[in-house]
């Protein structure tokens, strides 16, 4: 079956612009996670959703970052007024429940010039 998909696969933007990153989880998966991976680094947790609610937003780096999930499915991560330090790969994962195996998408590579 289809895995986790993310779009766009690559995004180049200018400092100060807003960007939206999209994640389509595996059908039926109730939990959805956003992580950020900087060059040569491990994954940094950003936020997780159980259904449409986000019980844990502790990883969002600043108030420029926000995320929503609608219909228990698609999620959008929005970065406002992008900065060069926001450049990274943004990975989305989904799982059947919050303690189940997480399946990752291919990521969105964001470059802020």
């Amino acid at each position, binding site marked *: 079956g289809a895995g*986790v998909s993310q779009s766009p696969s690559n995004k180049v933007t200018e400092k100060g612009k807003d960007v939206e990153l999209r994640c389509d989880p595996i059908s039926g998966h109730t*939990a959805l*996670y956003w*992580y950020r991976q900087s060059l*040569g*680094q*491990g*994954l*940094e*947790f950003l936020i*997780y959703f*159980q259904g449409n609610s986000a*019980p*844990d937003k502790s*990883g969002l780096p600043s108030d420029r970052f926000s995320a929503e999930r609608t219909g228990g499915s698609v999620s959008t991560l929005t970065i406002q007024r992008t900065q060069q330090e926001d450049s990274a790969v943004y*990975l989305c*994962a989904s*799982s059947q*429940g*919050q*303690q*189940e*195996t*997480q*399946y*990752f*998408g*291919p*990521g969105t*590579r964001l470059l802020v010039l």
Partner: protein
Amino acid sequence: QKEVEQDPGPLSVPEGAIVSLNCTYSNSAFQYFMWYRQYSRKGPELLMYTYSSGNKEDGRFTAQVDKSSKYISLFIRDSQPSDSATYLCAMRGARGNAGKSTFGDGTTLTVKP
């Protein structure tokens, strides 16, 4: 100090060698331990998932957990060039502590033919 420390590598071995990848952690609340494999420009792929201390084997891969020492390892036997990738350890707490995982920074492995 990071909660999860992973041997940084990079690691280069000849084909057929036994590979040992290691992580240590400081948070005694971690109870679930995972190893992910990440190929270049791809999302992480779950390789092994363990809960208790001891060994778990799957084909050429063996995951070892020592909770008393807060140390986990992944062994790869008869390594192949196709094993060349970045390996990430990850761990998370018990049910009720949310599903987010804490990752190591990854070890890049190259298996030379």
